[in-house]
């Protein structure tokens, strides 16, 4: 760019502080048409990924409706961790499929999404942490997912700044390590999907909030259209990808789902020279931190206890996160909290998503990802597109149906899933 070339005394750039250029065109801001084969409610990562993979299936008469600015919800607010080292087969299935897709996504989208596989450490601090960790590692291996159990010394080798000394409150007893885990630049991912979908002719419609649904006939079990702030849009199939706002949509349909929306806070530091080579998560000492491409430390704090749609949380949650960070990473003491924010996560009773049928035969649900939504983005988009195309849950998402709460066949990631995010 000209300022660079024409700039006087151009000095060497600091490592990583610079980011790749974006394409000159991203997406078309479309006006809503009268009707679409598929209307996707929610222009976040999941909605856009679903649109992209629908296009790959040749389904392009599709609208993605976003009530605000594209990917401005949790997609813009998450901490971009990507991993697949989940305990249960059902979870491992969808997250591992997602990770495979992440590994080829830069090419698929022809977009520099800065996917960086730097590995994730899930620290264990108690005897029970160790048991749970070994259990998860062994399950991952048998599911073909890269995973290893590391002792404290090996943890220090992978991430030298972790305090593995035995004199801290909850000494590090070891960690699980998934080398293929990583991070990506969330906005770029969303824009990459949006650009592809837009290129394929899919309409991306911003500032278009859904205000209701049109159901066909009397007490019919079909939805024929979507009422929005920009008019009513006829829909062949409706896909709900509204994350924290899903309950609001379901209330319009008179459908209940076991969802609770909570604030989830995150924060970043200023730009720092590379100091943290991987991603570290700890349950007992609640820490979750990576160092992003520009050099900022990115941290996820805990979920605030109460329901909230305010996109802000309580400060004591941040303070506790800082205390934990300094406890585990003494060198962070004088890093600075630069900005904090919050998203709205939709949490389910078993900490697993809800995907699949609703009582309306042509309305499909995708929600309840809690803190796990970003990492699943391509996998969910791929499987959900297939679900919409065939009118039945793809095998990878089938275990996550709403009916599991009736049968009791939960996929309970509480006990064994490492710390959220």
């Amino acid at each position, binding site marked *: *760019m*000209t*300022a*660079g070339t024409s*700039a006087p*005394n*151009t*000095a060497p750039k*600091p490592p*990583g*502080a*610079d980011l790749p250029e*974006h*394409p*000159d*065109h*991203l997406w078309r801001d479309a006006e809503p048409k009268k009707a679409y084969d598929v209307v996707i409610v929610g222009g976040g990562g999941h909605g856009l990924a679903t649109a992209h993979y629908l296009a790959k299936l040749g389904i392009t008469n599709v609208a993605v409706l976003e009530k605000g600015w594209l990917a401005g919800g949790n997609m*813009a607010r998450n901490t971009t961790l990507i991993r697949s080292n989940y305990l249960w087969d059902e979870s491992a299935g969808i997250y591992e499929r997602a990770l495979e897709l992440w590994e080829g996504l830069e090419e698929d989208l022809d977009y520099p999404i800065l996917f960086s596989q730097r590995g994730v450490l899930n620290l264990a*601090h*108690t005897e*029970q942490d*160790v*048991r749970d*960790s*070994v*259990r*998860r590692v*062994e*399950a991952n291996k*048998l*599911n*073909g997912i890269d995973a290893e159990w590391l002792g404290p010394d090996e943890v220090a080798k992978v991430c030298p700044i972790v305090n593995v000394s035995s004199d801290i409150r909850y000494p590090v007893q070891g960690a699980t390590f998934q080398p293929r885990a990583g991070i990506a630049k969330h906005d770029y991912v969303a824009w990459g999907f949006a650009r592809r979908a837009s290129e394929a002719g899919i309409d991306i419609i*911003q500032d278009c909030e859904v205000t209701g649904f049109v159901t066909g006939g009397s007490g019919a079990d079909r939805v024929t259209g979507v009422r929005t702030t920009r008019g009513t849009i006829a829909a062949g199939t409706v896909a709900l990808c509204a994350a924290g706002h899903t309950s609001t949509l379901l209330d319009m349909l008179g459908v209940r789902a076991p969802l609770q929306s909570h604030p989830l806070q995150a924060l970043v530091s*200023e*730009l*720092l*020279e590379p100091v943290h080579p991987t991603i570290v998560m700890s349950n007992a000492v609640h820490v979750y931190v990576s160092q992003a491409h520009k*050099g900022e430390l990115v941290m996820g704090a805990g979920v605030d206890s109460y329901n909230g749609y305010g996109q*802000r949380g309580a*400060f004591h949650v*941040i*303070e*506790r996160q800082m*205390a934990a960070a*300094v*406890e585990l990473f003494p*060198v962070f*003491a*004088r*890093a*600075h*909290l*630069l*900005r*904090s924010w919050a998203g709205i996560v939709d949490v389910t009773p078993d900490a697993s998503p809800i995907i699949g049928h609703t009582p309306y035969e042509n309305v499909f649900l995708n929600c309840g990802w809690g803190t796990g939504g970003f990492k699943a983005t391509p996998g969910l988009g791929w499987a959900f597109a297939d679900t919409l195309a065939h009118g039945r849950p793809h095998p990878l998402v089938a275990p996550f149906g709403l009916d599991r709460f009736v*049968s*009791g*066949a*939960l996929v*309970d990631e509480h006990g064994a899933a490492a710390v959220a995010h």
Partner: protein
Amino acid sequence: MSRVDGYGRIDRSRTVTVTVDGTAYTGHPGDTVASVLLAHGARPQNSSVKYGRPRGIGAAWTEDPVGLVQVEEPFPEPMLLAATVEATDGLVVRGVAGQGRLAEVPDTARYDRKHTHCDVLVVGAGPAGLVAARAAARAGRSVVLVDDRSAAGGTLTGTETIDGRPSLEFVADTVAELAALGVVHLQRTTAFGHYDDGFVLALERRGESARTRQRVHRIRAGRVVVAAGAIERPIAFEDNDRPGVVLAASARDLLHRHGVLAGREVVVFTSDDAAYAAAADLADAGASVRVLDARERAPQAGRRRCEERGVPVETGTLVHGTRGEDRVTAAVVGPDRREVPCDLLLVSGGWNPAAHLASHVGGSLVYDPVIGAFRPAELPPGVTVVGAANGTFALADVLREAGGPEAPVAPAQEWPEPTLVLWRTPGDPARQFVDIARDATVADVERAVGAGMSHPEHVKRYTTIGTAHDQGKTSGIIALGIIAELTGRPIQEVGTTTARPPYTPVAFAALAGRERGDLFDPVRTTALHAWHVAAGAEFEDVGQWQRARHYPRAGEDMTAAVLRECAAVRTSVGIMDASTLGKIDVRGPDAPVLLDRLYTNLMSSLKVGRVRYGVMCGNDGMVFDDGTVLRLAEDRYLVTTTTGNAAAVLDRMEEWLQTEWPDLRVRLTSVTEQWSIAAVAGPRSRDVIGAVFPGVDVSAEAFGFTTWQDTSLDGVPVRLARISFSGELAFEVTVSSPYAPALWERLVEAGAPYGITPYGTETMHVLRAEKGYPIIGQDTDGTVSPHDLGMAWAVSTKKDDFVGKRSYARAENRNPLRKQLVSLLPTDGATKLPEGSQIVAHCDDGRLPPAPVPMLGHVTSSYHSAALARPFALALVKGGRERLGEVVHVPVGDELVAARIGESVLVDPEGARRDG
């Protein structure tokens, strides 16, 4: 040297030496690193993040988008603004190229938190804040006043008059009055976050030599008055990032606070009146100054002041760019692009109210085209914004707005000229910097908009404008203005980006406060802890508790110690501290009803004097906790819980009682720490108890299994209960906690003849596992029902209902392939299966099939057994009880270890040993 005599609030009698990029500079107390550098005509050697262009000092306070330094001494701290770092002797800093550096060693400085409550918190000690605080204090309110600069006064320089006196005299008098009125007045204290109900976080910088380096004040105020002033707005033109381009008011601030003249040959480019004061003051201080006013008409007063000082004023004149290498040497002016030599180019495009603290709590902003900035609109209850932060800029108006009935007066500004809202001047957009900190130009904004982005959040993310250390304090509004221009929409429609805490960066350690090291999380210990320590115990964390895990003797590792302790319990007698078990006194006529509803088994039928093991489930039917229940009287039970769940069980019981069954006449009291428990276990435990309590008939006949008796020792009440978690003859001895150490000593003394052996949790775990007793949380994970644990016997069929019962009728609970607790014996008789190992079907070829490999379950507990003289494990296995005798495989490292599934009870299945 650009120090000017007679100016500045610095102590010229003393000097300090700061080293910047290897060069030592002298300054004075009261200086900042920025003022010291400018006093020497120097700048930090830093270059821009993307293009590596030189960067100087752009402003005198936190709004500076450039001027970053890395502190190296006394302790490394990344990314601070030279303008905000006070010059202290021995300070060593260097310029930064985009990224800061963290120390490699831990920070030993102290940080803390302090809670303060007040009626009124005033943020900002400028004219608005001072008079607002004074008014509140005079009205008898308790007031806290915080200000982020080193001294009160805000933008007041002393050239103004208030109540007919020089403004700084007014400031001094007011500060003194506030002190007299008992106002808590904190300088060097930045209110950085505002949360609900008047909760404001403020960081006090107490200095490197202070005992506590920084303190976070957690202030709870009845009313929050935001008087944080305004931030001067630059104007984008070509090469406006060049060192020597400075905000006009900042140059004035440097002169009056630090006695520094930032340049000798000064061009002031403005579209607003305020810059005329800077022009006049700098001229008075000896600079040759020229004013270029973008507006067609200059303000009369300002023009007069300039004429008096021989400062030429050109109106309708725009700066298009700059010339120079490492610093500006000329301004490029007008369409004919003539060059006006200068070593300092001051810019003023008007002012942006600093109402961030109001936005933190959801206060809305409205764009005001007259000032070309957003000002507060709807405010949450309890929040007031006054003065420049509210878009009120003229001193006289500010005082009136903030001061109430007793507001002081200042002369009104004569004939002001409206601000000309000007985001940029004509020129090459690729050289016009919007966010100098991020090297983002007007061209970048154009590209973003061209790429289809219309929302400011998109443009921000596309260009990274506003994401740097200054969070776009000066660049945000310009970006919005240019987006509006490019998209042809009014700014209000384009929208703004939300201000979020913190207002300025805050060190992690400051937020951690006192929660570091030993105080990070409480360590809970029992009354017997000192004894365990003296006995050389190794401890394990169980929740916040530290429990003795085992007592290794010289040369013993844990395995050896645990085998010895297990053998002692099985062959003679051992003693364990079980005090951490949760204990709840359940009292009242309806106590039996409550317990029948909460436990899966029947508690109402339990006879006084007896003990029963009980299981508690959630509504989902999954095991939540377990423990023993003693019936103390018809209307009284003592319930014990697992150590980790003590609080959760009481909470859940209270929740049921208070919110579902308030009609029940029952009350719950936690007595976890009231009573300490020593478990004496082993065939010789009867001898030990008999010796210590000669008055008690401890024979199996008189003192049967699962019964309890009250007795006393030297007049101290003691409760004995025959409960066994090891399968051996065992007694639990309960005493009021202060007496536990003495009682424990008696028991150990009495056990000496039998070699009584203290044992820890690890040994306890082995002993119970040999008996197939599960540990909740280890052998269960929230997905396990009592039936899965083989505890159908503990699930009453007599009761109509109890918490969780209904869930057992669900499809999944009838699934024959549910995981069930069984034992697992490695067929080699030697391998101790790692806890957590997964279990797969028997592989004839002894090799794993390719992934994904179906899993049958996992190992929940695994130990070496002294009694069995072999390793064994407990496991949850799909359809486990249908597979007894089957051989399965467990991957251990690269090996597949064969193991046989068996009944979960491995030692004394007929229970013959419990009576000794």
